[in-house]
């Protein structure tokens, strides 16, 4: 009946169980076994830099979702809406970061006046007599360039809406029937050009006019009767009545000073910071709504988030008319590396990276460390665990259980949004009906595999990360071993089932050990009733 807790096997077991549950140790061993198996049997494919990178990246992205849902699961709730949150946040991010290019001075043609050289345009454009005008991406004939003769504020009679204000522009040439619709834009003469690259640019172009509003990332459209070029501007400098543009591409051999230039302005709907901020804010609001519905309206978490799953998916599809969204190459140097970038450790002789850690993995590490600290070291973390086990006792202990539950749902949707942003940036093609489908189940499965119990109160962050890694490695195994990917779900399902069964068996062993330890403890008490057991060393 020793009280030497520091040395006996029980205390070692207890110590281990205190920090990492036996289940996590179990799946960690399984993960190591599968990784080892793949490394030995498929070294060429598995150990390939790209494969490892991909594995880490997917683990990171799904891991973030898993950590989020783990918080809700620990409160004995569930969040089925994560997949749709991922889809919605991807769509919203793409919407918020929509980039439009438009000529600096342009107007829509709404009608020809008779068969004359006059057109009605809207909105009121800043055209002046003498300006050169061309139809935007329209005619390329030699007479495509028009000169403005006069500009007059006028009204245009419509059959349905009556008179509408419009500008009547008169040109020097007679217009064609094709010119009834379209867009006209001011165009400028090319004064000179240099088709030689320097340190920063590939070519230099000088055009007429003082274009003070041109900035890097804006573009210039160049036309002649045969061709059209659309080149990104690296820098613009105004000198009197001419503007020098440094360009991102060579002008080509066919270019000459007969070409005309239309400066194009780039318009981004929001700055990156406010786009991400808005997505986070919306996710925050959704999390609060989930939490309020669960705590104040007393609805079941399953039902609330099932409705969320359907609702957000529908909204995502409706917002963009079910059209796939993307970022093109607009944010390749700014935002996208967050998801696609990597930290290169070693390089191959041919210059490609042999071993690299994708940036999302660092994001996962950051999220996991913060989440683990929050769960294990803060007051709120302990509250989440306590109310997951016994909400009533938590309430009687002076815990605002409703607020704590809401916090868990907010963490879940916020991490869902972070995951959604990263998934969107990574894929760069967001199908509103597909993006994030079933991701909630991956996240929940990883959390359960990692030691969370749907009964609540149980689970840790490390386990969730390992659970995610195991699922992604399995996925990798299916690909590398050439197993039909139609079997993917079946295999993952089977592994989770085996994991849960193994957990239950382990749980019984632990319970038995505990009973033995308890009996020993009772024996101490029973044998020496007047005395208390010594306090074990801490």
């Amino acid at each position, binding site marked *: 009946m020793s009280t030497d807790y520091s040395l006996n096997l029980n205390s070692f077991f207890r110590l281990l169980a205190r920090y990492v549950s036996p289940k996590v140790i179990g799946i960690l061993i399984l993960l190591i076994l599968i990784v080892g198996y793949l490394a030995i049997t498929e070294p060429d494919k598995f150990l390939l830099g790209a494969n490892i990178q991909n594995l880490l990246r997917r683990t990171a992205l799904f891991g973030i979702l898993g950590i989020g849902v783990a918080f809700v699961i620990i409160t004995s709730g569930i969040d089925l809406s994560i997949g749709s949150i991922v889809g919605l946040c991807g769509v919203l991010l793409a919407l918020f970061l929509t980039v439009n290019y438009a000529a600096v001075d342009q107007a829509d043609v709404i009608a020809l006046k008779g068969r004359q050289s006059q057109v009605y345009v809207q909105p009121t454009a800043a055209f002046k007599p003498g300006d050169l005008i061309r139809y935007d991406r329209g005619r390329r004939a030699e007479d495509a360039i028009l000169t403005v003769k006069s500009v007059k504020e006028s009204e245009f009679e419509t059959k349905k809406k009556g008179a509408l204000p419009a500008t009547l522009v008169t040109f020097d040439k007679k217009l064609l029937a094709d010119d009834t619709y379209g867009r006209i834009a001011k165009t400028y003469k090319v004064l000179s050009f240099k088709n030689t690259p320097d340190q920063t640019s590939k070519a230099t172009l000088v055009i007429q006019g003082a274009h003070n509003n041109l900035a890097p990332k804006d573009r210039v459209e160049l036309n002649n009767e045969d061709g059209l070029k659309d080149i990104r501007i690296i820098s613009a400098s105004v000198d009197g009545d001419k503007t020098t543009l440094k360009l991102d591409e060579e002008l080509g051999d066919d270019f000459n000073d007969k070409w005309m230039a239309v400066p194009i302005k780039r318009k981004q709907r929001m700055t990156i910071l406010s786009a991400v901020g808005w997505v986070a804010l919306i996710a925050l609001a959704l999390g609060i709504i989930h939490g309020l519905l669960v705590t104040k309206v007393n609805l079941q978490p399953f039902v609330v988030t099932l409705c969320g799953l359907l609702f957000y998916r529908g909204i995502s599809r409706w917002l963009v008319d079910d059209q796939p969204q993307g970022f093109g190459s607009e944010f390749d140097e700014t935002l996208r590396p967050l998801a696609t970038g990597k930290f290169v450790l070693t390089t191959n002789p041919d210059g490609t990276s042999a071993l690299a850690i994708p940036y999302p993995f660092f994001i996962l590490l950051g999220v996991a460390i913060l989440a683990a600290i929050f769960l294990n070291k803060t*007051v709120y973390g302990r509250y989440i665990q306590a109310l997951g086990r*016994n909400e009533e006792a938590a309430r*009687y*202990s002076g*815990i605002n259980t409703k607020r704590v539950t809401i916090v868990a749902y907010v963490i879940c949707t916020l991490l869902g949004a972070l995951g959604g942003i990263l998934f969107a940036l990574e894929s760069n093609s967001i199908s509103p009906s597909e993006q994030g489908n079933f991701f909630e189940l991956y996240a929940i499965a990883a959390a359960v595999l990692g030691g969370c119990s749907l009964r609540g109160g149980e689970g840790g962050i490390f386990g969730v990360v390992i659970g995610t890694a195991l699922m992604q490695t399995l996925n990798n195994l299916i690909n590398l071993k050439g197993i039909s990917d139609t079997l993917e779900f079946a295999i993952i399902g089977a592994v989770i089932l085996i994991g849960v069964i193994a957990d239950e068996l382990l749980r019984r062993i632990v319970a038995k050990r505990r009973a033995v330890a308890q009996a*020993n403890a009772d*024996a101490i008490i029973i044998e020496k009733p007047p005395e208390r*057991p010594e306090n*074990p060393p801490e």
Partner: protein
Amino acid sequence: MTTDATQNLLEVRNVTKRFPGVIALKDINLSLQKGEVLALIGENGAGKSTLMKILAGVQEPDDGQILLDNKPVKVDSCKKATDLGIALIHQELNLADNLDVGANIYLGREPRILGLINKSKIYRDAQQYLDMVGLDIKPDTLVHTLPIGQQQMIEIAKALSQNARVLIMDEPTSSLSNKETEALFQVVKSLRSRGVSIIYISHRLGEVKELADRVTVFRDGQNAGDLAREQINHDAMVRLMVGRDISQFYSRQPHTPGKTIFQVKNLVTSTWPAHPLNFSVKAGQIVGVAGLVGAGRTEMLQTVFGVDAPVSGQILVDGKPTSFASPLDAINAGIALVPEDRKQAGLVLQMTVRQNIGLPGLRRNKTALLFRNQSREDADTIDMIDKLNIKTPHPDQIVQFLSGGNQQKVVLGKWLALQPKILLLDEPTRGIDVGAKQEIYQLMETLAAQGVAILFVSSEMEEILGMSDTTLVMHEGRIAGQLNRDQLSEEAVMFLATGQANAA
């Protein structure tokens, strides 16, 4: 009825049961005659539950014999126990409360016609057993619509329907009202007269005195002694249970209370909106709240503590009006509540002693950025284990595995670590053994001496009589009367509690 040993219906001979590292039962002997009510008493951990599990076939003894009708039997499964006519009525009821009464009585052995359940036979047969236990309900009543006392009767009816000859009742009255308890006693007595033998386990010595034909006392896994009918009295039972005389079981010392620090004015609870409550507690005073179960005592405490919202009224702490929208507000005002249901409301059973003791103080003790103050939690835990004499092998023991008395001390510990000015206790000694009870009484005494105002609800008359300076007696949501120490008597309390003062 003869006391000849050969007439024993059930006999336990020299049963020993060892668990790893501990001997739970050592050479236990027990005999039960036909039509006898044998009370089995002892402190928690004395081995009563282990023996009951052995008799019910849940566990097997390592040594010794069980004889039924003087023939050795092997009770190696629950089914075997049922077949032999031994039925255990659990402390926690095992009914499917979404099904009706008849379905529960015949659960698992439904009479059938052509493979389908023969409902009419179930109802017909069930009625007969319901009559036997004096239940005036139809067998097609849904169980969840019945009060807890009647549900327990259904458990008994179920046992009878299995031709039980030995009924083991483990703390059957722990969740019953006085009226239900009375009804249960009637049933026990009528079963006895039908020749059913009953082993009655209880901490309530008053019940034992009323019901038992004989008392067997266990202590530390061994026989501590038997008492024949005429020897059964409170002191004798306590002496055998704890192995020593408790001359000063209740140790309330004479003292002078301080000024009023807690006052409730016209408080209206949502359960009893017609009756505003008024009372006050002075520093260092122990106020008992007596009354029958369902008199509104628990509701009053819960409203005061902010668990339930009050309809109207005022609560004054140190003369300052406060309002409690949640337990957190009450805690911040210096109030603590040890709730009636410690497993549900008092503790997070699957958490450790340390985590439970730390729980209410987490917010108050937090360091920067909401970080938990681990060292403070550790210190409080060690302090409380020490002060309250909590018997736990180490601070990280899961509280589920502690005895009832020690669990209750953990509940007390989590509140005392906050040093409350006002301590509300709801049935503080329910279901815990005599030794722990006495420790809790002493603790109340010590706290009162330190100036804590204590308000405690109790259904045990002796506790009320022994511990309270002033007693509030509640009847159907009202405070029917207030008794000072010199007016306090069992008769006076019952007079008020049963509403006779009102009728008069």
